[in-house]
């Protein structure tokens, strides 16, 4: 066993699929994974010793004595469901050092492959020119060409190249993408599921559970899981109410521009409502300036 992995138990699983996520924009992947873990009541079985990958985030001193240092936790969970066995990996933090990220990706796959893993999914965010009132789609990016046909059949899902104004090329930053690159290198098929987050919200440190829900809907259908996502709906509603409150503080002119995004949620819709890249930049600048001024109009 690798000394960087600490096992609590070694589950016996039958060809499990791995679903993994690290923190990122809108906490979309992490919220999806934590919800899945809770809904399935998945059991923790191992963790990656954090000290090589993360700086501690908290210290506790009591009566002049060093009590503990707390590091971000990166844990593995498992669940045997009626349809298939599942492995979950929830990363506490993305290593800032690229080489350490690569090392961590290999460690995660090592654990998964030792348990007979057949396929990998990761969950993350896709920053998109959409409005917060629309249902976020899921951008699905497989790590093998032969998965394209399957991915096209998923509900509420698009391929990168099918998104208006985009080509089929791009970059998935961070470990949620890197893991699938390493999986490809090791011959393991995988799909990255990116839930859409409005471009004007992505820059703020707010969660976006609505996109997590979209990802979980795709995952549940694909893995044959029956899960109740009402709790995620409640979270999404709460976040949306907060966004709405802020939205109505924004000057009318900016709001009108953002409102145009309501019409770009579907690849097959008419082009009349679309906005240009220039419009998108202007909206971002205006929103940014607005919040820099503490949310006050001139």
């Amino acid at each position, binding site marked *: 066993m690798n000394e960087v992995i600490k096992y609590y138990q070694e589950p016996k699983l039958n060809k499990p699929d791995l679903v993994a996520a690290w923190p990122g924009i809108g906490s979309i992947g992490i919220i999806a994974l934590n919800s899945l873990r809770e809904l399935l009541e998945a059991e923790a079985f191992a963790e990656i010793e954090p000290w090589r990958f993360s700086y501690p985030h908290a210290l506790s001193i009591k009566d*002049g004595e060093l009590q503990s240092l707390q590091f971000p936790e990166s844990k593995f969970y498992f669940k045997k469901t009626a349809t298939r066995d599942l492995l979950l990996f929830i990363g506490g933090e993305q290593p800032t050092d690229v080489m350490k990220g690569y090392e961590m990706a290999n460690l995660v796959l090592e654990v998964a492959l030792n348990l007979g893993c057949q396929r990998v999914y990761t969950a993350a965010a896709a920053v998109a020119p959409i409005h917060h009132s629309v249902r976020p789609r899921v951008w699905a990016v497989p790590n093998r060409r032969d998965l394209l046909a399957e991915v096209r059949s998923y509900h509420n899902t698009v391929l990168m190249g099918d998104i208006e104004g985009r080509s089929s090329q791009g970059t998935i930053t961070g470990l949620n993408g890197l893991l699938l690159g390493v999986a490809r290198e090791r011959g393991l098929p995988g799909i990255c599921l990116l839930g859409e987050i409005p471009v004007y919200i992505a820059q703020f440190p707010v969660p976006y559970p609505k996109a997590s829900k979209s990802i979980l809907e795709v995952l549940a259908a694909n893995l044959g899981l029956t899960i109740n996502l009402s709790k995620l709906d409640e979270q999404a509603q709460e976040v949306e109410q907060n966004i709405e409150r802020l939205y109505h503080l924004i000057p009318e002119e900016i709001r009108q521009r953002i409102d145009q995004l309501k019409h770009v949620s579907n690849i097959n819709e008419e082009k009349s409502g679309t906005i240009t890249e220039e419009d998108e930049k202007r909206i971002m600048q205006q929103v940014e300036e607005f919040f820099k001024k503490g949310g006050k109009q001139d």
Partner: protein
Amino acid sequence: MSQGHTFKIYETPRLQTPCLVVGWNQDVGGLGSKSLEFLIKKLNAREFAKINPAGFFSLSGVPVEENVIQFPQSKFYFCAENDLLIFHSNGPGQSHYEFLTMLLDVAGQTCTVKEIYTIGGIISLMAHTSPRRVSSVVNNRQLKQPMAEYGVNTNLEYETPIGARPTLSSLLLWLAQKRNIIGANLWVDVPFYLAALEDPRACKQVLSILDRRFNLGLNFAELEQQTEQQNRLIAVLKEQESDVHRYITMLERGIMISEKESEALANKVAEFLQKRA
């Protein structure tokens, strides 16, 4: 070590079971660098090893400070007479765990380290005329009593506030604990308006504890003179600037000053002392 992390040992010092003293450059009040430079000079400590910067520091360029190019250094010194090891370094910008592990490995390759002490400053809302209090954080209860005997505050309570993160010295103390090396972080109060400068009085305070702990027989006249000189200069500034006089008097009386006033005081003291440095 991975990622090109290397070190170099020039000579193997003959030591029994030494204690290791660690300080960092760019510390509050120049505590780490000034105290260790003093210690190295007074004890005639000899450099015997270094950790190479590649993989720990950004080498994409060099910083310039006060018109001079800087370069990160991480050097080990020893003093056989006092059975003491000293590690004086810049804080690494990356691979902190590997850096501190290497620090303990290099020290451990040459001898068995008995105890480890780190030196650091804490920014405090106090006047420069107030005594400097030293607090300790230990990784083993057995060190509390000796620290208390040197007048150190050994009852510190602390939880990392949101947005902050533990210091490198705390991480080192924790790693030492994992290797069963007992140790303490020594933290000295530094008046906030001396934080970006040097605080010789705070240096003397923390060094006097090491002096007693290791029977070093240090002569602090140099630091005392520097303190007197600094106090004289601040007194001149107080006479020239009524605001500075008022703020320092308020601090001496235990009255809080506003953030704006604190900033003004720190700027005026820094400007005045740096011009006369």
